[in-house]
């Protein structure tokens, strides 16, 4: 460390020196270098194994953050994807866009399935099983009557809103269930008069995954009149995890949780039961 003799006569130049030095440092500091994060071409698997549907697995690549990344040599549509179920193994058939099917496979309650393929010099593995079909699904009513709401009627008033529809089922082991409510028609009448420029609300809505044995559907949640399908899914924990908080901010970015090894996404079994509910106009 050099010794600076600090005498009142030369303090002024010293402070000037410090300011100049600081300014120079600022200039250097403001040049930011663009750094690229390392990118690993880990594949994304998306598959919902629901009895009564075709077994389909979708594979895709991540969207990279940096503009210049090198992907692995593997082709998305040429993966040798193996599906094991029980004692059988079958190679899935690609049908383009990363979609692979295994036609003719029936999925029943309790069946286990596992997936295996190589990608980016790693073996991607996933396994799941079909959970039991929801048992004793009941609905409190099959029809509800709602008034049309337009600019003249205003807020629903006294005694006009029906009670919530109670859906219940048997859930002795507190596993996860999810309810999805879907309007069956392609152009249903909205309950609430929409403005000309307003987007149409979705035909489908859902409730949060629950480990309870009942759920209430509030009349206010319905957007359309007509016949609605009420689908109760018995889901596995890794599907419920998709609804957990996941980070999208630089303050707390961590890798998403997944049950797939060497891959991301979801490979999960489901089972369902369906009831119908009519929403009729008053």
């Amino acid at each position, binding site marked *: 460390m050099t010794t600076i003799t600090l005498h009142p006569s030369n*303090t002024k130049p010293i402070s000037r020196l410090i300011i100049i030095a600081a300014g120079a440092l600022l200039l250097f500091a403001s040049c930011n270098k663009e750094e690229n*994060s390392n990118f690993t071409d880990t594949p994304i698997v998306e598959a919902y194994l629901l009895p009564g549907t075709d077994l389909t697995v979708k594979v895709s690549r991540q969207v990279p953050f940096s503009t210049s990344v090198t992907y692995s040599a593997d082709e998305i549509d040429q993966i040798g994807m193996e599906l094991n179920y029980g004692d059988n193994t079958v190679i899935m058939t690609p049908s383009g866009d990363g979609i692979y099917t295994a036609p003719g496979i029936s999925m029943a309650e309790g069946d286990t399935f596992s997936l295996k393929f190589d990608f980016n010099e790693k073996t991607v593995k996933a396994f799941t099983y079909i959970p039991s079909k929801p048992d004793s699904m009941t609905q409190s009513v099959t029809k509800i009557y709602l008034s049309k709401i337009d600019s003249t009627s205003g807020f629903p008033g006294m005694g006009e*809103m029906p009670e919530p529809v109670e859906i219940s089922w048997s859930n002795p082991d507190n596993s996860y269930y*999810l309810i999805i409510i879907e309007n069956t028609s392609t152009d249903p009448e909205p309950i609430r008069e929409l403005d000309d420029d307003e987007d149409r609300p979705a035909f489908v809505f859902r409730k949060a995954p629950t480990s309870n044995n009942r759920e209430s559907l509030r009349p206010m949640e319905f957007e359309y009149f007509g016949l609605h399908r009420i689908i109760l899914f018995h889901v596995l924990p890794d599907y419920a995890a998709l609804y957990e908080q996941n*980070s*999208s901010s630089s303050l*707390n970015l961590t890798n*998403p949780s997944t049950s797939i090894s060497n891959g991301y*996404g979801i490979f999960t079994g489901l089972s369902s039961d369906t009831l119908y509910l009519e929403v009729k106009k008053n």
Partner: protein
Amino acid sequence: MSEKTKREPLKALNVFPAILLLLIGSHVLAQHKEYSFNNPGNECFMDYICYSPDGVYQSIKRPFVFIVGKTGETAIEAFQSDSVYNEAQFQHYMFVFLPGNKAGQQRQPRCIESLASLLTYNYYYGRDNLFLKLRDTSMSVMQLQESKLNTIFAAIKYPENSPADNETTTDQNVSTLFRETQIDYENYHRQIKEDGTGTFYVEDNKMTDNESVFEKAVKTYFGAPTRHAFTLSGMVKDRSTGEALPFATLLVKGTTNGTSANADGYFTLLKVPSDTSVLLVQYVGYQTTEVFLTPETPVKQLFVELAPLAVSLKTVTVVGKREDMVMNGRLEVATMKLSPKKLETLPNTGERDVMRSFQLMPGVSASNESSSGLYVRGGTPDQNLVLYDGFSIYHVDHLYGFFSAFNSNALKDVQLYKGGFESKFGGRLSSVTEITGKDGNSKRFNVGGDISLLSTNVFAEVPVGKKFTSIVAFRKSYKGFLYNKIFDKFSATSSYEVPREGGGMGRFSTETEVTSYFYDLNAKMTYRPTDRDVVSLSIFNGADKLDNGSAFSAAGFGMGNARFGSNSTDLTNYGNTGGSLKWGRKWNEKIYGNTLASYSNYFSQRDRTQERTTYNDDDEAVTTKTGVIENNDLKDFSLKSDYEWDAFRHSKIQFGAFATYFDIDYNYAQNDTSDVLNRSNKAALAGLYLQSKTKLFSDRLILTPGLRISYFGNTAKAYPEPRLALKYFISENISLNAATGQYYQFANRVTREDILSGSRDFWLLSDEKSVPVSEATHYIAGLSYEDNNYLFSAEAYYKNINSLTEYSLRFNPSPMGVSYDENFFSGNGYAKGLELMAQKLSGKFNGWIAYTLGEAKNHFDIYGDGFFAANQDVKHEFKAVALYKYRRWDFSATWVFATGRPYTAPSGAYTITLLDGTTQDFFTVTDKNSQRLPDYHRADISATFKLLGGLKGDKKRREYGYIGASIFNLYDRKNVWYKQFLIEDGSIIETDVNYLGFMPNLTLSLKLR
């Protein structure tokens, strides 16, 4: 000093001649008293006589007449030859007869001045009743004019036919000239006391040279010293409020012999060279005071009273008068001190904040608006021990970290030890912030308050009798535009997107009224049963409450027989409660000790749930709660004792013992059925320390070696922490500092990264299994130059940190079940840097610039082999603070520049389509903290206008408040807080979430005194 009899300066004369003189003269001059002033050989040596016509020698509250005899006359001869004292009007006066100049000798007139000062010590208004009759013609006119005797004496009668005689008034009659001015002595004295409190503004050009706002100490004794190398002890207080001034510095002028007062204002100065030395007493925000010791000065209980800086309304710069707001520790290494009173002149955002002000110092990071904890030299806020009146505060944030939990109106002193701190403190790896609360005005009742665009603040100081003082301060925010602006910025931003349930009729959701506020309550009661004891009880309570809940019931929609209801709670409530009871006692002049028992509680509740009441088949109401509940409760019970023993001339020994019991409960539950985390930790920590402040090489070298040993119950091990600090004065102004030490931390704070708003941290106690005791080693070296006008310092530091713990809570789903895995990752790190500071200490325009070059890196095996930049790593940081005082105005401007903090960018992202058709984005990461945010800079300005009592043109006007306006982030720089990522059109888009922009604030502050 109370009323006294005439003091008899000690004589080195032979006693025998004196007795002879008395015996000879006694029967002739039965009623007068004879004294000597100084010793033979001293130029002001003289024998003088006091005579009181009414025989009363005790009182000094009366007119004095000094009579200087003719050339060659002794005092006795002057006494015998002058008979003015026989007049009736002079019966109650006091006459002092001085000998005239010896032939050929020229005794200076200032000797008369000195004697007059000595005899009328504490005689405040005696100037109107002090008279001089000069009969000695040998004093030249020039001497008389230069001596300014006319400023000491109300009237002077010059010798007849002397040149000076022609310039006196025409009225030569002594009776008229020496007429007493009647003064109601009692009331005048009280009025002076009354005027003495508060801060004053003076019109300097209206004051005569000899007047000052507060009586300046003057050298009154010119005699030989009677004592050498003695111990002086006492207390440093604020002259107007009586508050003890902790850590005030006392120096023997012209030497390097100095000491600091302790936390209660008591000091002991060993081996004071003589009882005529001069002490220089300094405390930030107060006038540096000189105390001229005399043989009469008490050596055991000397009360040194410092006056707050009075402000001059003149526009001329006073050079050499320090205007400190922040002071570098004069006798300590790496220490900074702040005056809470002076904070009102710095720009503020609704609240004067001590922690934010420390961010303007080198070594403390200023680019973090979302945490008011201090990041000192690359360390995190949980590595900074915050002590308030002796107990630890674990959470210092209000309003999402924008403000700290400390109300400046209740604070007396704040010190920051940036590193290498002494053995007295432990349990933290980086730094110590020691906050001392005010005791309360011991002389008069005081009340005051502030209101700003953010909060209101009110305080009261109530003394009861002479021994008891108290202070209460309360602060609460209100929902004005400023609160909303800060609140909206920091709470609404959410880092995660939870797929929203339902859809439907959004227009009919109930309006939720968000209540949120923060408050603080500080109270302290101090009782001084004797001059040696002080007992104080300090209470601290503050919390933030945020209530975003809503209640919805079908009844609200007009359904009488509603069979459901739903209650949505979104409640965040966190804060501190603490208190300490302390007993300090000065056992004898060398030993001071205090014992403290304290309790500190940090609580945090976060309840984001929905409560549904439904009816089951049996028509019973069933309430289910879904959502997240988080409860955090930390209790710290401590008992500690600290002693200072001024054992030897060159060594002050400090030792003590401490014991702390921790009880930490952390509970995180989802829905009311499942507990995700339930931790309950208890541990005991106890230990002792010993250190010695040793002065060597005639006080040029201050060496402080120390050892602290702690025993931690959870690991059943002892942890020795050796420390060493060194300060070497190369000259009176230049010093070299160095420090090194070992530090352990037994409780670490973990941040749950998945929650952005509300309190997101909890404290973890170390144990054998997953969380090791973290440790650090410090190395500090620096050089500083300081004189009355400037301070320059350079300091380099290196910290080596081991056994750091990172915590991650992973929700691990598998088809088989759900588990929450708590992962504790162990790693190590280092921080190093160089700090430079240049500060102008005096004059109307002052301030400082500070620059820090630093690096903080960590290594954790799970993140890879190399070191990655720590979250708080900032490479360059530059700060400039400029303060300008013009009459009643104070202007300040600050500018902060820091290079960007690191952040983790995603390496890739993907989208999953859920069963209901909605999509969810996910981001993957590879490198931790490999990117840098853009540079941070902002400027703040403020202007403060003092409100003064009295009328314009009055000589002296007391300050009773101020109006301040300040602007935060003057040029509305968009500083990036964090980045938000989104997948759009097959690529990842990042958007910046910025810190606060342009924010103006107005403050009105009023106080009684």
